[in-house]
């Protein structure tokens, strides 16, 4: 009996010891390498690996850029879509290499971020916030104006065949289904863009929930990320939700034609998204919003999204190799990336904005020296 126990115990201890050794080797062995020479498979040209987090609005295009920049430069970009609020928060806390947000940082957020350095907004692409719906029998292109959309999200318009909707859609048969609102549960730049639009056309919205990355939604289900709202719309009959164009395309959503400032009902598309960027005046720190653009063909809920980096990356806590990798990423975004974006319906930056952004990236430093 003793022999059996001894044997058993010895075998178990040996197994445990092997496991411990394997784990320690795994942990320490790769700890000694700096994380910039981490998991780059394939053709490692400059290699490196950077972490970013933030808005889900541009996640499709960032993921596509990430895949391409890996093939081109061997750079691995880990991007987590946690919402613009999360992106700004983690960027300010210094836990990531770059942040991403659809709405430019507010003055308060800017002040909090200056603890680690000088935050720089780099616009990357223009995207559009669609009003997507899942209603039996309803086709694409339901005409809605800002006031009606606001009333739907306020819970004042409760059914799809409400007169407010029917008025704008003469001749369209509308179902009597209840409207189920899908909105964000996390802090979202997409929400800020959307609520900016709603507040412009609905005094009730402006004085009620207001404009912010997260508001007190009077009604509806909360979901995380653009992907979550898309899932909510897909799963609920009679649902309406606001999601970025790429998500609507991916899921074959029917999207509304939204009335813009010029009074035209515009469908979200590459052309109408680009039109929103034309002729806008942009301040020196590049913090702007293109919502409710004046152009005749402009989609009214389109705007740019931003990448956030500190001007002096090394002073903010990054190693030099890391800082270089971040610059490689930004350079890609503003050059080849601009050519790739249209293939997934994100509009490239208009020329004056693009050159301003490039200047900002050229000015990035590491401990005072240009990268």
């Amino acid at each position, binding site marked *: 009996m003793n022999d059996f126990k001894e044997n058993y115990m010895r075998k178990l201890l040996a197994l445990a010891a092997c496991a411990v050794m394997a784990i320690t080797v795994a942990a320490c062995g790769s700890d000694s390498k700096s994380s910039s020479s981490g998991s780059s498979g394939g053709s490692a040209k400059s290699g490196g690996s950077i972490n970013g987090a933030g808005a889900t609005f541009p996640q499709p295009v960032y993921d596509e850029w990430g895949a391409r920049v890996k093939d081109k430069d061997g750079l691995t970009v880990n991007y987590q879509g946690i919402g613009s609020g999360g992106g700004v928060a983690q960027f*300010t806390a210094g836990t990531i290499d770059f942040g991403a947000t659809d709405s430019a940082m507010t003055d308060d957020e800017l002040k909090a971020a200056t603890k680690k350095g000088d935050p720089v907004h780099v616009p990357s692409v223009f995207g559009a916030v669609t009003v997507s719906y899942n209603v039996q029998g309803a086709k694409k292109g339901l005409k809605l104006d800002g006031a009606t959309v606001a009333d739907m999200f306020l819970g004042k318009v409760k059914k799809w065949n409400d007169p407010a909707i029917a008025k704008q859609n003469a001749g369209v048969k509308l179902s009597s289904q209840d409207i*189920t609102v899908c909105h964000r549960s996390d802090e979202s730049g997409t929400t800020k863009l959307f609520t900016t639009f709603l507040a412009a056309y609905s005094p009730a919205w402006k004085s009620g929930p207001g404009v*912010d*990355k997260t508001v*007190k939604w009077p009604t509806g*289900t*909360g979901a995380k990320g653009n992907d979550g709202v898309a899932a909510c719309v897909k799963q609920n009959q009679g649902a309406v939700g606001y999601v970025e164009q790429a998500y609507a395309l991916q899921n074959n959503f029917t999207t509304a034609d939204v009335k813009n400032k010029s009074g035209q009902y515009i469908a979200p598309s590459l052309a109408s998204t680009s039109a929103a960027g034309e002729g806008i005046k942009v301040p020196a720190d590049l913090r702007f919003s293109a919502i409710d653009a004046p152009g005749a063909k402009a989609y009214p809920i389109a705007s740019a999204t931003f990448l956030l980096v500190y001007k002096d990356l090394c002073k903010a806590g990054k190693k030099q190799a890391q800082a270089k990798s971040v610059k490689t990423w930004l350079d890609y975004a503003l050059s080849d990336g601009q050519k790739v974006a249209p293939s997934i319906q994100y509009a490239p930056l208009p020329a004056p904005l693009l050159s301003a952004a490039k200047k900002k990236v050229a000015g990035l430093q590491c401990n005072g020296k240009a990268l």
Partner: protein
Amino acid sequence: MEAGSVATGGGRSKLERSPLSGLPDKVLRWGLTALAAAILLLIAYFFVRLYSEARPAFAKFGVLGFTFDNNWDVSKDVFGALPLVVGTLITAAVALLIGVPIAVATAVYLVELCPTRLRQPLTIMVELLAAVPSVVYGLWGVYVLIPKLLPAEKWFANTFSWIPFIGGGTVAGPNYFIGGLILAIMIIPIVSAISREVMATVPVEHKEAALALGATRWEMIRISVLPYSRAGISGAAMLGLGRAIGETIAVTLVIGNAPQLSGHLFGQGYTLAAVIANEFGEAASDPVHRAALIAAGLVLFVLTLLVNALARWFVVRAEKTGGSRVAEGMAG
């Protein structure tokens, strides 16, 4: 005979010890004591740190204000956790109402009525409910439970809309009820396991006495087993409650994440645990929001602490006064 004459081949008696031989013993004792003390310090630091991080929120809104104000507004930096507390309590209540009777009934069946051959397999199956992770229950809840139950919920809400909490709003897909139902499923294994343990300690004599007096099987259970186990079962229910209060991931996927007091069972809601999971990535650099989330965690923690303390008290009482319960049961 001298004790020291027990000799070994080496010359020194096996019973004599060298002065150093006490050292490993001392090392072991003090090493283990230090370990236990270190763990205690860690736990203490855990409480202290959480409290100090939560203090700014309590300072700004007051302890009662934070816990009972009905206004969780992230954009305006105002944090009153009432909708969260209520949501937590509603889902926990639904979980208990559904889960405890089923779990206790299961325990009774497995201990008293189940044929011996089936006992092991059925017991294992009930325990396997605990092996399914929270996120998998959430996945199943979103794609199976919610769509399949929606028509039934709508019918129920329409038919019984005159009952105050049932009617009164559109039936949403994710809602309090589904949250409570998933929690009920998750607490069944633990409540059942503890109830089974408690019922297995009922002295055989009590049961035989009842049977000898001509009781049917069910009457025997009602007279001897249940009264004896009452306190222990209450303890088990409290432990289930503690688990239900703290469950995060499954709940956040099926409750709708609306920081409001929906006035009806089939409306969207929020719980303390779910709000922490959803918002703490965004609160990193906003001191008030961060303090509010940690304060929510602290409220959650205190709730589970109270519930578990209550559970422990019940179980201890059960061990002490089990006997007298039988007499009560027999008289009743």
